[in-house]
């Protein structure tokens, strides 16, 4: 048995878990841990705000598939993590957050920098722990990593009182077996029920208008290969959610791209008219379904998900399969291969119909040679990166354009806050992603409103020489809110005009980053080309775009797919609302 400080035990467990990078910011209650980290053999990234640290750990986890680690002090340090934890929780991202707490004898006395962090973070973490005895510390930390990365992944927080980090005790790191045995109530279901899998195969054989609806679970489960195999074997078209982007190559002829509120016409039409919907690691979010009673009215639904609570939550399904997506799909493919039918002939008329829809309303926008269209910027980023960059988006219009106009081809390529919709996520997540994947070009596509919410961490990116490319789609508005105001509030632009802005180029330069600007379409490529040449520090590109461009198509919130708004409004012309189906 070794004898060490609590703080050193923390570092030892992090080493044992294979951690290579942590993100955080020190303070009083976590100082002992930072003292131990001073000698730790892994990268310790000092951020300028705990929220950014949490998003960086999140971006790192999304891009690499490993558990992200974030460290903060008690009180305000921990409360600053709240948005980041909720973001990771909604998107099932594996994180371990370690927070300092006031010494045990001060807990409950409203001590300096004391907050009930366990109480605050309970509903936004998969689980959380308050360490009350140093004997439990190594086991709790290992449990945290185990819970974070297994089953439906998620953030786990460990709150450690300062006196425990200072206390010296004998300890040993528990084995994997001991960790599992210590959690008798936690047994994620991996294997799908074989009877259900047979039923699913039967429905797939009988279906005439099937659609695969793939969500973030397919990426978390590392099932892109299986999705590809299933789609091509059975000739089923694939639509992905915002979170599922990259689980199926968007350049594939079977790709329908995104569905839902800002889904493509053809994806939404296909889902609306389908007779079988195979939901894979997706959760029928309201942004996907619109009006639930009119969502895919005739489709039988197969739902594969590792979380039983996701099944039949908002919509009743016909064949629920609880299990790990990859595992279940492998078995389903085997089952289908046992008894193949003439798949190509069976799908011919359905795929022809889909092709008609694709030709009728492809993703489109009105081009201009006078003013920069935001969609054009995204297309040019796609071109200059050969479609191979990792894209991390903030939240708002730019996020949707980044989702629509960049074609994703591999998992973990598109990072964004899909569930919580956290503005300010894109840039710090890009920094975390670039640190985790230095081999990839990483773009943060940000809005001017979203970017400014975590602008302080430009300093972090410069300090650690993280060469992320930040593309600001600058329209001087909180654009998505403005769009809703235009559509649904009679163009009353209440509190959306960002009339005072920093000069983003000078701002970048003041941090020691490179700043570039494009105000005309002809400058876009040039700016991007310059940015691609800079590889020793962050570069910020300020794209001054058409201020009132809208994200279309759009299914208004709570409406059915039949009420999709398709075409952009022309001057003096009313918005066209297509009633389809």
């Amino acid at each position, binding site marked *: 048995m070794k004898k060490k400080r609590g703080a050193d035990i923390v570092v030892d467990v992090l080493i044992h878990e294979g951690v290579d990078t942590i993100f955080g910011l020190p303070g009083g209650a976590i100082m002992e841990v930072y003292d131990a980290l001073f000698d730790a053999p892994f990268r310790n990234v000092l951020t300028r705000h705990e929220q950014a640290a949490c998003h960086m750990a999140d971006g790192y986890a999304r891009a690499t598939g490993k558990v992200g680690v974030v460290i903060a002090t008690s009180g305000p340090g921990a409360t600053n993590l709240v948005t980041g934890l909720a973001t990771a929780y909604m998107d099932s991202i594996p994180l371990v957050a370690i927070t300092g707490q006031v010494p045990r004898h001060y807990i409950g006395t409203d001590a300096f920098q004391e907050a009930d962090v*366990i*109480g605050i973070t*309970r*509903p936004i973490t*998969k*689980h959380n722990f*308050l360490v*009350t005895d140093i004997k439990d510390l190594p086991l709790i930390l290992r449990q945290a990593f185990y*819970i974070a990365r297994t089953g439906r992944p998620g953030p786990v927080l460990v709150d450690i009182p300062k006196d425990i980090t200072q206390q010296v005790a004998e300890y040993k790191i528990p084995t994997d077996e001991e960790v599992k045995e210590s*959690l*008798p*109530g*936690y047994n994620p279901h991996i294997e799908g029920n074989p009877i259900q899998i047979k039923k699913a195969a039967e429905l797939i054989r009988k279906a005439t*208008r099937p659609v695969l609806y793939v969500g973030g679970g397919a990426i978390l489960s590392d099932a892109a290969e299986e999705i590809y195999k299933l789609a091509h074997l059975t000739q089923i078209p694939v639509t992905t959610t915002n979170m599922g982007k990259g689980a199926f190559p968007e350049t594939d002829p079977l790709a329908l791209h995104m569905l839902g509120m800002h889904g493509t016409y053809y994806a939404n039409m296909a889902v*609306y*008219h389908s007779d079988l919907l195979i939901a894979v690691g997706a959760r029928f979010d309201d942004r996907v379904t619109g009006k*639930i*009673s*009119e*969502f*895919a*009215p*005739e489709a039988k639904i197969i739902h594969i998900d590792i*979380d*039983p*609570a996701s099944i*039949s*939550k908002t*919509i*009743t399904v016909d064949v629920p399969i609880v299990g790990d997506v990859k595992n279940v799909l492998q078995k389903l493919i085997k089952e289908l291969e046992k008894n193949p039918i003439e798949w190509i002939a069976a799908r011919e*008329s*359905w795929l*022809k*119909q889909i092709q*008609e829809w694709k030709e009728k309303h492809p993703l489109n926008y009105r081009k201009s040679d006078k003013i920069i269209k935001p969609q054009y910027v995204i297309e040019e980023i796609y071109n200059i990166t050969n479609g191979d960059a990792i894209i991390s988006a903030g939240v708002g219009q730019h996020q949707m354009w980044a989702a629509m106009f960049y074609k994703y081809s591999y998992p973990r390529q598109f990072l964004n806050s899909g569930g919580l919709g956290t503005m300010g996520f894109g840039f710090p997540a890009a920094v975390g992603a670039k640190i985790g994947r230095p081999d990839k070009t990483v773009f943060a596509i940000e809005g001017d409103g979203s970017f400014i919410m975590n602008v302080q961490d430009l300093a972090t990116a410069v300090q650690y020489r993280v060469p992320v490319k930040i593309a600001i789609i600058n329209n001087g508005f909180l654009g998505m809110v403005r769009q809703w105001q235009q559509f649904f509030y009679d163009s009353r632009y209440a509190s959306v005009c960002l009339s005072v802005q920093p000069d983003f180029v000078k701002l970048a330069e003041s941090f020691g980053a490179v700043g570039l600007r494009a105000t005309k379409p002809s400058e876009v490529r040039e700016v991007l080309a310059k940015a691609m040449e800079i590889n020793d520090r962050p570069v910020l590109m300020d794209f001054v775009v058409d201020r009132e461009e809208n994200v279309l198509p759009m299914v208004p919130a709570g409406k059915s797919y039949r009420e999709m708004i398709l075409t952009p409004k022309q001057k003096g012309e009313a918005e066209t609302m297509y009633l389809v*189906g």
Partner: protein
Amino acid sequence: MSEIKVLKERPQPEKKIGRHIITVKVQHNFGVLARITGLFAGRGYNIESLTVGRTHEPNIARITIVVDGDERVIEQIIKQLRKLIETLRVRDITEIPHIERELALIKIHTENDRTRDEIMRLVSIFRAKVVDVSTDTYTVEITGDEDKIEAFISLIKPFGIREMARTGTLAMVRESAASKMSLGERFD
């Protein structure tokens, strides 16, 4: 087939609203009750009653929850409870033969001898017990299922209830019924 006709609406399953009794076995860790009540509050489920107490097993507590809702809500509640790391077993025992008990302490105003006699009669009919007496009150202890306690309260109300405390429902599956089931069902 450019003209695919589909239904306008998804056929909706019928909603059956009812009272459900859910029993939950949990690791009796720090904050586990807050986790469960927080789950109900955060997701907007209405608890009619919730009781918690230790069991014969060390560090294991048992919680009985009575909740009203349609089947989908109840199914969600059960799934969400199972999702908690510290829950060991969750069962909806509504449809299984079971025993339900609740205890209530009721302080009743006693006007005069006539009301005292009348209250004593009711106490005896309901097999309740007077556990404290003062010059103008009786404090009665009564156990039984919810219906029995409600019936007693409605009869005693006209005399004037000064104070009341109820434990909420405790429930347990009847072994006589459970033994008829397959082993698989008993140990799910």
